[in-house]
Every structure is written in structure tokens, then in C-alpha cells.
């Protein structure tokens, strides 16, 4: 059975359509990533799938239950980490888990064992009696991850679980998720706007922008689907007028984009193109000010499918966005 089956789901807020008829399927045991900038409709989509918002059209089946008509059965099957930090600051780590175990009706004899196991899994056993207000953001996120699993759900929804965390805490959360996933039969749907996160964690990725599904495949296939295996990014000075044309005719080059003196070359063979480009530049007395060669990343995939760089789309980030994120002017 499919864990998640979304068919042409739509959400309208007045005149504004936040989700414009998205369809996808997630198999049991998969880690599925929803990738997109702020405002792409990721959170609205996840809120519909977790019964927090009623869809305006289409259907979604979670563990075989309709989110609109069988909300209660859906809620019993899922664990959810909403985007906002939702643990109670005044309660201790253990109490946060205990109250949710009670809300989910976990029998008393199973509660203690599950809570012990989960605290161990998120490495918070020694903090179990501390009030959540005394924990760091990353630890608080881990409390919430444990809390979301306290009733042993089949499907786990995480809405931007690492937003607002420093790079070390982010990696820690990923490792923990992978470990928990390997230990139990769990399907995971995770939204993020971090490319590296999606690349490392997810079996398949859906790229969402402006409420529409732009692409859907495994990270590997998505990267293979965009032109070039490598990307050369270089800045020059003293370039002739037909420089973009000259670059395009270099061996193995598939695509050239650029503005002013900075150019990006998509190529199927990085080293060959690099050598040729440097020789051509020397011959025409163009000086190379900077040069970087890298494999195609999901960033390039994103640019390819949405027509804009993810960091441009992040120009107006929400208040809870990562304070550590470096934005380029």
C-alpha cells in the first residue's frame, strides 16, 4: 500500500491559490523530500496532509485514509513536527513526551518504555528532567522529534525541521533521523529549503515552486537530468564582446549563462573544458580572476527547473529563518 497518495490537491486562500493541483505518491519506507523556497506552498501542502487545513480540491490518502473525511484515522497514523517549535517551554523534556503519549492514548505500560527508548534515540536521556526552556534550539528540535514518534506512527511529517538551527545541529538532526529511520518501519516526508539536506537524506525529491510541482525524482536522477556533469564558474577581466560565443564553442560545453564578467558553464567534462578555457583566455589576453569547478548540485537542478536560484528566492526569508545562513548580495 502507498503511504501517501496525493491526487491533484488544491488550496485556495480567497483569490490566492497557494497549492495548484499537486499529485505525487510516496511508497512505504521512503524518505521523501519537498524542496522549495519560502512561500512555494510546502507548508500549506504539509498542513493539508496532516489534517491541519482542509483542501479546497483534490484528495490525499495517508496510510489509505482520506485527510478530509477520515481525519481521525489519519491523525492516529502520523507523527508531525510542525515548522514552529511547538514543545512546551515550561514542561520538562519527559513531560512533553508524556502529555503527547496521553493525547495519543498510548497505554501506560508502553509509555515508559517508548519514552525511554526515544530519549535514548535523540540523545536527551540525561536532560529528561530539564525544562525545555533551558535547552538549545537543536535540542528542542530533538525533543519534538521524539515527541512526534511517541505513539509509533507509520508516517512521519517534518516541516523544515532544521530551519533556524546552526550547521552543527542540522547535521546532528539528519544523522538522528537516519538512525531512527533505520531502526523502525517509518515513511518520512520532509520539507526543506536546504539543497544539501535534501540530497543527503531523501530517496526522492519533489521540487515545488509557486504552488506547483516542477520536478520529481531521486536526487541522482534529478542531477543527471540537467545539462552538464560539472559546472565551471569563472570571472574574467578584459573580455572581448563575443566572449560568451567563444565560451560556448569550447569542447564539451552544453550551456553558458552569465552576466557582466561572471559566467557559468555547464559541461559534460569539467577538466577538458577547464583546460581549453584557460588556454583560450591566455591566447586572447583575457585574465581569469576566479575559477571554480564543481559537480552539478541540487542547486543547479533547482535553477534549471524554477528558472531562479534558490538563494534569490530566499531574499525575503521569514523571521524564523536560519540566522547563520549566508546570503550573497
Amino acid at each position: 500500500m502507498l503511504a501517501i497518495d496525493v491526487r491533484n490537491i488544491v488550496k485556495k486562500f480567497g483569490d490566492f491559490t497557494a497549492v495548484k493541483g499537486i499529485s505525487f505518491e510516496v511508497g512505504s519506507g521512503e524518505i521523501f523530500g519537498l524542496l522549495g523556497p519560502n512561500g512555494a506552498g510546502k507548508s500549506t501542502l504539509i498542513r493539508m496532509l496532516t489534517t491541519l487545513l482542509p483542501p479546497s480540491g483534490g484528495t490525499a490518502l495517508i496510510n489509505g485514509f482520506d485527510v478530509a473525511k477520515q481525519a481521525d484515522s489519519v491523525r492516529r497514523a502520523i507523527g508531525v513536527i510542525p515548522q514552529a517549535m511547538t514543545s512546551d517551554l515550561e514542561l520538562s523534556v519527559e513531560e512533553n513526551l508524556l502529555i503527547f503519549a496521553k493525547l495519543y492514548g498510548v497505554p501506560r505500560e508502553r509509555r515508559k518504555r517508548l519514552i525511554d527508548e526515544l530519549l535514548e534515540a535523540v540523545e536527551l536521556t540525561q536532560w529528561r528532567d530539564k525544562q525545555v526552556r533551558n535547552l538549545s534550539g537543536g535540542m528542542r528540535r530533538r525533543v519534538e522529534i521524539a515527541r512526534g514518534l511517541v505513539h509509533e506512527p507509520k508516517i512521519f511529517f517534518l516541516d523544515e525541521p532544521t530551519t533556524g538551527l546552526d550547521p552543527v545541529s542540522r547535521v546532528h538532526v539528519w544523522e538522528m533521523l537516519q538512525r531512527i529511520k533505520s531502526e523502525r518501519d517509518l515513511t518520512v516526508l520532509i520539507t526543506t529549503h536546504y539543497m544539501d539536506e535534501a540530497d543527503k537524506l531523501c530517496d526522492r525529491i519533489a521540487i515545488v515552486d509557486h504552488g506547483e510541482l516542477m520536478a520529481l525524482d531521486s536526487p541522482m536522477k534529478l542531477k543527471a537530468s540537467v545539462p552538464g556533469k560539472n559546472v565551471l564558474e569563472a570571472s574574467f577581466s578584459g573580455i572581448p564582446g563575443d566572449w560568451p560565443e567563444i565560451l560556448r564553442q569550447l569542447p564539451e560545453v552544453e550551456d553558458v549563462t552569465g552576466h557582466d564578467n561572471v559566467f557559468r558553464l555547464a559541461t559534460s567534462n569539467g577538466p577538458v573544458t577547464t583546460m581549453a578555457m584557460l588556454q583560450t583566455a591566455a591566447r586572447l589576453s583575457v585574465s581569469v580572476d576566479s575559477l571554480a569547478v564543481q559537480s552539478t548540485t541540487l542547486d543547479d537542478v533547482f535553477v534549471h527547473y524554477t528558472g531562479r536560484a534558490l538563494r534569490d528566492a530566499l531574499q525575503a526569508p521569514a523571521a524564523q529563518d536560519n540566522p547563520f545562513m549566508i546570503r550573497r548580495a
Partner: protein
Amino acid sequence: MHRTLAMIEREMRRFRRSPMLIVMSMMMPIVQLVVLGYAFGGNVKHLKVAVVDQDHGVPAVRIRELAGAVASGNHTFDIVDYADPGEALTDLRNGVVNGVLTIPPDYSRRVIGRQEPKVALISDNTDSFVSATLSATMGQVIGSLHEPVKTSARTSAEPRLDVVEVYPYVPYIQYLLPGSITMSIFMMVMIGGGIIFIDDKARGLHEGYLVTPITKFELIAGFNISGTIKAVLAGVVVMVIGAMIAGVPDALDPIRILRGVLVVVCAAFALISLMFLLMVRVTDPLMPRAMFGLLNTVLYFPSGAVYPQQGFPGWMKAIAAVDPFTYSVHAFKSLLLKNTGFEAIAFDLGYLIVFSAVCMTAATLLFKRTL
């Protein structure tokens, strides 16, 4: 049901760890009770009255002697002698004295000739309490000038009003106590109920429990029962401590405390229902704070907690008629000031229960289980 209990447990555990909230909602009404009780309750004393005697005759001296007797007796006012009426008036305007008693030059002559003798009291009426006290006291002083002549001849002929007070003297601080208890319940409902509820929403905390299988009714019951428990705790504490501070006789009478707890429970549930109705669709955290100030005024003052409702204009009487504070205050007055039985508060309890039922039904219809 076990989910409702889990919600209540969550709220009570959070409440226990918020000592500021407990202190705020219990201390503020007690501080208000004490400060307002002593600020308004006392008799006005040592007002300064300028006496300008332009007559110097025997009847004028008699007035001054009588006034002097009052001044050294209950100290309502002190006398300052002035020779120049102009100077006395200037001092009155400048606030040096509170009133000027002028005995005109022809006073003695008119007294002897029985030609409507008059003395004038010029008072600073910007402070109505002071001017009312002065004219009442001076009225008595002047009135007593005639007494020896009147009494013996007319006792049997003139009807007299004998006032019988059924309860011992009630100081103003005791009069305020019922309002303070109701206020403490209201403050806990607003701070511990409304503000926390909206702040949780604004921080997205409610998404956490909305994705659990808790039903709409279990959620509503959880919020309101926990809110009521907190408000009842505040109300009972202020009722007992307040009664001891205000010097209510037999403050710890268990039967009366039991009846009082019943009123506290009904008032708490009525106010939490009203709050829940007002907040059920609110998401802006500024809203409950703004509403707190407004409701505070609109519910507390028309309730008869500080001034008798008979003195209100019609529109305010209308507010008072529906205001749950009115019935709570009335019930506490019956219990604490008159030590009445259940029948005196039955109507108040009935109104509070009906009021709760109406508000809670409306709020339940408006409550959304989704975002």
C-alpha cells in the same frame, strides 16, 4: 476523556512553573483592595477653614466658639482667623485654605432683630468630597445654634426618622472585597486563560496538539476546565486572605467559605466562558491584552463593586444587568457582609450558570478544529 485530562495536566503543570502569573493574579487584587479601601474609606479630617469675622458681636462669637468646639472635637476642620476677606479669598483660590466662613458686619444686629441673619461659606468646589463635607459640618454647626430654642416645645409634634442599622458598621475596604475577589478570578481568566491561549496560537504551539487525535469537545473541555481550576484557586485565595485583611467578622467560618467557593466556581466558569467566546477566533497576541484593559473597566465598575448601581445612568444600568461581575459581586456581598444563607445567592448562581451556558455554546459553535 483521557485526552481532556492530558490537556488539563499540561496546563496545570505549566501553571505550577509560572510563579509570576500566580503572584500577579492574586497579589494585584489584594493590593488594589487595600489601597482603594484606605484611599476612599477614611473620613476627611483637618480641612482648613478661614473665619472672617466682620461683626465681632456676641452671636458672632458664639458661632466661632461652636466651630472651635467642632475643630478640637472630631478634627474635621481647623480654624484659621483672617481679618481681611480679600486675603482669605486669595488663599482659598491658592489652595491654602479649603473654605472661608464669613460673618458679615450686620450679623449681630439681624440676629437680635430677627431679620434673617446669614453667614456665608465659600468653599472650593473643585473637590466635591471636601466641599460636601464642609457644608454638611458647617450646616450642623449653624443648625445647632437654634437647638435649645426648638427642642423642648416641639418634640412630640414633629416626626423624626430613626435609622436602625441591621448589620454592624461596614468599612469601605469590606465593601470593596466582593469586587476584588471577582477581579482576581477575572485576572486569572485573562492572564492564565486568554493571553496564554492566544500566545500559544501566535507561537504555533497549537499545531502540536491539533495534529493529535483529540476531538473538538475534548480540546474545548481541556482549555476551559483547566482555566476554571486556575481561576478558582485565585478566587478562593483572595476570598480568604481578603476577608482576613478587611476584617470581615468570623472570616474563617467554614460554612460561609464553602458557600463562597460555590460562588467562586460559578463566577470563574462564567468568566472563562466569556473569555473563550471573545478569544475563540482571535490570533493576534495584542488582542487579549487590549481587551483586558477594556473589559476590566466595562465589567468591574458597573458591577456595583465600588459604587451603588442606583447612582448609574440608564445605559450603565443596562451593562450592569448583563455583567456577570454584578451577580458575582452581589453574591459575595450577601455572604461576606451579611452572612446570608443559600437563598440570598441562588438567583446570582442561576444567572452565572445560564450566562456560562450561553457563552460556551456560542464559543463551541465558533471554535475551529483546523488552522
